[in-house]
Structures are given as structure tokens and as C-alpha cells.
């Protein structure tokens, strides 16, 4: 096994992504297909948005199985549910995208629903090298809520970012707030993450 990328002569790692209409059993049949191919699931996460299910897994499979065969095996077990499947080999160890001194913030935006809102916000964040680690958006009637958990590199002045986003929010009909994640941790979790509070 190569410790840098987890590969060996007789095993390979893949990202396996499944999209389907949500129903009971998707994870069961997908993991069953992996097991039958002689594989192992090393990490997984799922989410459901408006009845649509998406699953991402890191799987380790025998090296002699082709990517197309992996994909077919998962598509076949999902035939009744109509799985869309993507399989991508992992060629190296994924490195953290952000400098370790980045701090986590929550950006929340509430306002009227308009096309292009997420594009404007995310383009701004991308331009600043701000990584989105989690994103949630939902529309109810004509109102839209957008919550993004982001990592802000230390070179950015928080008050300037807040001013920019508030200005953008005013243009788009949104109220926007940028808040350090610790206030959400403090008010909701039993154990405080004191090490995150920078003096």
C-alpha cells in the first residue's frame, strides 16, 4: 500500500457518487454492490434536497475491476430507482484546500427569491479564495434562505467582507450576516470548542 494515496497493487480507491429520487434502500443496494465486488466503504455522506437524494462514498475496490464495471454494477442495482452514477479514481491524497489558520464563518442571507443570487454570492466568495464547506438554500413562497458555512483566509478583513456582502444583499433584496461559527457552537452544543477562540 502506498501511504501517500492509499493505493496498492491489488486495490484502488474511488469516489462513488449516486443521484436518485429519494426512496428507502438506496444506500443498502449501493453498499451491497460494493460488497459483492469485494470492496470496502471508507467514508460516506448523503443529503436529500426536495426529494432528490445524493450519496458520495470513498470506496476501495480490487484493482482488476474497471471503472465502467463499477459504474454498471451500481447502475444495475438501482435500475428500479433510476440511479445516476459517477465513479472517479482517486489518484492522490486530497489536501486541505485552505490554509490551516482560516476560520469558519456562517453566512446567512434571507430575502426575495431571484435568479442569480447564489451565483453572485458564490462568485464573490470564490474571487476572495473563500471556500464553501457546506451550503443550504431553500425557497418558500417568494422568500429564499441561503446558509453557507465558509472558511475565510486570515488576510481578509472581516468588517470589509461584511460590508461587501451587506451591500450586495441590499442590491439583491437580501439581508446578509457573516458570523463566526463559534456563536452557533456556543448556543447549541454542550461542549465548547475553546481552542477555536483566537485571543
Amino acid at each position, binding site marked *: 500500500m502506498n501511504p501517500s494515496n492509499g493505493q496498492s497493487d491489488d486495490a484502488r480507491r474511488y469516489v462513488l457518487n449516486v443521484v436518485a429520487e429519494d426512496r428507502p434502500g438506496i444506500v443498502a443496494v449501493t453498499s451491497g454492490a460494493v460488497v459483492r465486488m469485494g470492496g470496502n466503504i471508507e467514508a460516506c455522506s448523503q443529503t436529500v434536497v426536495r426529494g432528490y437524494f445524493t450519496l458520495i462514498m470513498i470506496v476501495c475496490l480490487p484493482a482488476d475491476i474497471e471503472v465502467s464495471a463499477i459504474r454498471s454494477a451500481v447502475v444495475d442495482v438501482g435500475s428500479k430507482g433510476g440511479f445516476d452514477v459517477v465513479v472517479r479514481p482517486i489518484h492522490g491524497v486530497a489536501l486541505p484546500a485552505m490554509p490551516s489558520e482560516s476560520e469558519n464563518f*456562517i453566512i446567512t442571507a434571507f430575502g426575495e427569491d431571484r435568479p442569480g443570487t447564489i451565483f453572485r454570492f458564490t462568485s464573490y466568495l470564490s474571487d476572495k479564495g473563500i471556500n464553501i*464547506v457546506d451550503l*443550504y438554500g431553500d425557497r418558500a413562497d417568494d422568500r429564499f434562505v441561503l446558509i453557507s458555512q465558509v472558511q475565510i483566509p486570515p488576510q481578509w478583513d472581516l468588517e470589509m467582507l461584511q460590508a461587501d456582502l451587506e451591500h450586495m444583499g441590499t442590491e439583491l433584496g437580501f439581508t446578509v450576516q457573516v*458570523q463566526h461559527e463559534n456563536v452557533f457552537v*456556543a*448556543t447549541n452544543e454542550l461542549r465548547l470548542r475553546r481552542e477555536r477562540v483566537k*485571543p
Partner: protein
Amino acid sequence: MLRTDVILSTIQMLQAEHLDVRTVTMGINISDCAGPDVTLICRKLKQKLRAKASRLVETCNRIGHKYGVPVTHKRLAISPASVLLEGHGSQAARQLAEALDEAAAELGIDLIGGFTALVQKGMTPGDRVLLESLPEVLSSTGRVCASVNAASTRAGINIDALRRLGELLPQIAERTADRDGFGCAKLVVFANIPEDNPFMAGAYLGAGEPEAVVNIGVSGPGVVSSAVRRRIETSGPLTLGELAEEIKITAFRVARAGELIGREVAAELNVPFGIVDLSLAPTPQVGDSFGEILKALGVEKIGAPGSTAAVAMLNDAVKKGGMFASSSVGGLSGAFLPVAEDAALADAVRQGHLSLEKLEAMTSVCSVGLDMVVIPGDTPPPTIAALMADELAIGVINNKTTSTRLIPAPGKKPGDMVEFGGLFGASAVIEVRNAACSGTFIEFGGRIPPPIHSLTN
């Protein structure tokens, strides 16, 4: 990763229910400013306050912004000013108060506490100078807050001090008659004064505290009353136990937000973090009222039977939630009933639902006592002293803090309206029944001995 519902519930508290940190109060020891020359004392005092607190306001604003939780008040609490007045006269007291007033203004601080004397067992010359200066100091300065500890569970009640305070209070009121006796709103008379209370007007830095310290007072009652109302609206039939649970959870979250900000402010200012005071401190703003919580709990008229039980339940639930949230709980940490500063309480007095006697009963299960209570301007001094003695007796016997902030509004009769403005609010004058019937009791003077600590019925 934080869950979306968790984020949304905090956002609800911050935006819809206006969660804030009510006060960040920096305690500063000023004993080392003592000296033989008053001008030198004042100069050292200003230097010290500048050195310790010049970044307080800016730091609180910046950190509040970072978390989206505003810090409403930034204040200072010094160690007892009476210490600096030992060996000096009345002129020194006035100069000292002016120096404090000027320093606070320079630092952007609206109130500075600690013009304080601890006289529960007796008075030093410095204490006496401070007490006698109160009419002048509280009428000529805008930011200086005074407090006197006149009783404790270990010492009993210093009736001599209360008798004198009963005489001084109308003098303070007369000197501020153009503002309906507002000077008295900056004087708190305590039993068992806490050394680390961040709330004004009674904040001071007590013995045993560090050289400098940051104490915080959590958000006001608006958050709790919104949580109670929302729970009632969104749930089926509820019991009081379930409502107490909701208050407890809300208090936990409020205390956590406060401690987070307090600790970071303290770290940035390089001083120790002291305590989180869990007290729900109302403001005259609509919705930020302790009385509104009682109404949400179903006590339709504040002062009606059930009021004391509701206050007891609320106060206890707040403490339970806050104590679990933080290992640094201190200060007063009870519910406040400051009548003029709480729109619903003031309204209850105006409508005659809340009497002085019922208010006193309610204060026996919470803090801080007969607070911001406007009484008739012609209330006899011994009666004022006796009102104080009654309230302090509750604290002394029950081993807790109680206090009075009584305002004998000059020329005002029961039912007349008095408006202080701003945070100090407005209230109708409350009736003092059986006035002028306590003179002989107070005239005996001396000290009511401390209570026994067994046979606790």
C-alpha cells in the same frame, strides 16, 4: 459541520428576538491611586482607567460584530472609592467624582460604578465622607453610580446607615428635582453586595477580585419572553414544568453567547475573565420586559396572585440553564424587577395592579429588590429608611443579595407619572401605605444583629 436547523434557531434568537450581551463591565482596582493630595489622586485615577480601559469600547464593538451579537453597554466598575477618601474631606469626594465622570466620558463609557462604601457593620471616616457627598455628587455628575452596602448576613443591618440614607435620599432628589429626583436612580443600597456584579447602578469591584477583570451581563428578558410565547403558540397543551424547561434551554443559550463574547473581550484586553451574570435585566423597550414574561406565563395582571410563584419559577429556571452553560456564573444572577425600567411593571404600577407590598414579596424570590421604584416626594425619611430595612432584611435572612433603588420624586403624589428617559424609563409613583409609622423603630438606631443559621423555618 453545523446543522441547518441549529443555525436557523440561533439566527432566530439573534435577529427576531434581539439577543445581545447586555453589558461588558470591566472591573478595575483603584486602591493604588490613594495619596495625600486629591489632585494627584485624580490624575492617577484617570491614568489608570485610561491604561486599562482605553480599548474596551472598540474591542466590544468589534467582537460583537464578529459574532453578530451586539454588546449593548460597556461599563466600568472600580474598587470602592471610599478607600481613596480616607483622610480627605467633602471637597475631595466631589473632585474624585468629577474625575471619574470625565474619565468615563473620555473612554466612551456611559456609566461608571464603584462610588461605593461598605458600611454593613460600621463607618470609617472615608465612608462617611462618601455618603455625605452623595447629594452633590449624584446631582453634579452624569455617569457616576454609587452604592452602599448597609447590611449582610454576617453583620446584620446597619440601621444607623439606613437612617442617614433615608435623610440623604430626599436631598439627592431635591437637587435633581428638575428631573424628578433622577439622582436617586444612580444610588443602590444593598444587603450582601456582590463583588463581581456587572450591572449598574450597583456595579463595583469587590475585595478578593483581580487587579482588573471583565464581567458580563447576559441578554435581557426579550429573548426569554419570545421563546415562551413561541413555545406556547407552536406546542399543544403545556405544563408549567415544560415552560420552565423552555426557559432553561433559552437561558443556557443566552449565557453561552454572553460567555463566548466576554471571554474573547477579556483575552483581547489581556485581563482575566470573571463571571457571567445571568440576571434578566429589562429595558424600557417594548418586548424587553420581565413583566412580559409573567404575562406570557399567564399572569394577566402583574401583581395578581400567582405573580410571586411565576417569578420564582422563572428565576430558578434561568439559573439552572445558566449554571449548566457556564462554570463562571456570578454577580447577581437573578431576575430584576426594576419598575421604571420595565414597561410592563411600570404599567402595572400605573394601573394599580402592583402594590409596593406585592413587589416586595416578589423580590423575596429573585433579585435585586425594590429597584427603580418611584415613591412620593413627601415620604418621611424614617419611612424611606424602614423601606430599605425591610428589603435588606429579606436578603440578610435568606442569605442572598437584595437592594433598593428608591426615588422620592419631589412634589409627586401616588399615581403621578415620572419620566426619566432613556434606559431609566418612566413610572407612576407608587403608594407607600402606612407612611410615617416607622419613625420610632428607625430612631432606635444601632444594628440589627445577624441572623441565626439553624432552625431555618
